[in-house]
């Protein structure tokens, strides 16, 4: 995969194993340096909207994708999704929900809140790698976000 675009990806994932496997895949795909990550909901919000020391996050303008797990410590994924999609500074950023929840009400609620895609984490590692790689390629390389 070539790194044609310049956008960054924010991966919000609390499970350290899933995170390591995802970063491994991104490393193999050569985009690891474009992936930031947050380990819980509060950290994700800080990165998106800044915290006490940085009123607005410097890099959020260059964020081309947020990949969001739903079950997160502190602030859950749906709340982060709601905040992203209801804030003028961030609502243009594509959000892909990547979760193990197959519950129909989760799918419906995420799309209602403005999710751009909903992907169920496959158990098989080959498929998981394929999903992570495909998301990176599609949203960071092929997708053309508004500026």
């Amino acid at each position, binding site marked *: 995969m070539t790194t044609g675009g310049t956008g960054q990806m924010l991966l919000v994932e609390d*499970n350290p194993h*899933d995170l390591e496997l995802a970063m491994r895949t991104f490393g193999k795909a050569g985009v690891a340096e474009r992936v930031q990550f947050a380990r819980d909901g509060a950290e994700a919000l800080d990165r998106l909207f800044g915290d006490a020391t940085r009123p607005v996050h410097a890099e959020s303008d260059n964020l081309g994708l947020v990949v969001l797990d739903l079950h997160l410590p502190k602030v859950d994924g749906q709340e982060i999704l709601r905040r992203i999609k209801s804030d003028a500074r961030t609502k243009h950023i594509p959000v892909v929900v990547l*979760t193990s*929840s*197959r519950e129909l009400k989760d799918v419906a609620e995420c799309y209602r809140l403005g999710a751009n895609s909903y992907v169920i984490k496959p*158990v*098989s*590692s080959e498929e998981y790698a394929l999903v992570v790689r495909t998301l990176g390629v599609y949203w960071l390389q092929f997708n053309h976000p508004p500026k």
Partner: protein
Amino acid sequence: MTKLTSLDSHAALDESTREIRDLKAALDEHAIVAITDPQGKISYVNDKFCAISQYSRDELLGQDHRVVNSAHHPKEFFRALWATIGRGRVWKGEIQNRAKDGTFYWVDTTIVPFLDESGKPRQYVAIRADITERKRAEEQVRELNAALEQRVLERTAQLEAANRELEAFSYSVSHDLRAPLRAMDGFSLAVLEDFGPQLPGEGQRQLQVIRQAAQRMGRLIDDLLGFSRLGRQPLRTQAVDSGALVRTVLEELGAPWPDRQVEVRLGKLPACVGDAALLRQVWMNLLSNAVKYSRKRYCARIEIGARRDGAADIFFVRDNGTGFDMRFADKLFGVFQRLHRVEDYEGTGVGLAIVQRIILRHGGRVWAEAAPDQGATFSFTLGEGVGA
């Protein structure tokens, strides 16, 4: 002549007096009677009135009805009563009164106003019947109903709580149990990719076993969740074209299987009434089993048909596959029950449990007949109320 007439009229008067006396005697036997003057002062009460109110005649005469007032009815009630009889109209209603000892009694009451020549009420005659028992029974029914309603509310709340708990449980199963499996599979793969060349062949095989087991558990979780979801969703019944349903399922299963020799005989299937999506799953599971367990035959035969049995249609799927020993037939429809080795026939053992659950929810019945190596026949009916 005149005398005779006078005698006649005397006789007639006697006759009518007797009649009135008889009527009054009968009325007194039956009813509580009181007469009041235009101001509401009691001018007459019969024995029954005294008995039920526990007041003597002397205590009642000259009083108004406030002496037996129970304070049960609002002021407007009596205002409306007086307005009605004051206008010369009959009033009917049920009144709760209070006896001398403080106990309450109910009377079904009819008050008839009698007017003078100028049209003003001259007196009111009130005829009453004791309905205390009926009122008590009504009150009991009301209390029982309220208690029943309360219990239904409580039970419903308990059921809803149990349902929510179950949902939260399956939610957490689907999320939390999958994560370790991804790690087992993912890191096994990472070892194979990163250190594969340094591993002896047996080490590589053992890592593959870990991966296969993790993936199999993922499928078990999926199937179990699917099974538990079945009980939660409501049935959406409609008319279902069984023949068309079976044809699309066969197509989805890959019929006509170019790489195998499979002979499918699809008989005429009657329409039925049921939940189309669930019945689709029934056919899908039965037919995919027939395809699966007949795959070691040089020429597999799958027969799909229906026959009439009294009021019910019996649908069946028959194959000439590996069959099973009828001694284990009772295990067939249990969750995670399998009658074959996983290395011979893949599967999680949930398919027939799902079939049975769907059929039972439709009020029907499902059963199997088979013999080892002689094929199997699965038959089912849909409930009388649901079936065609």
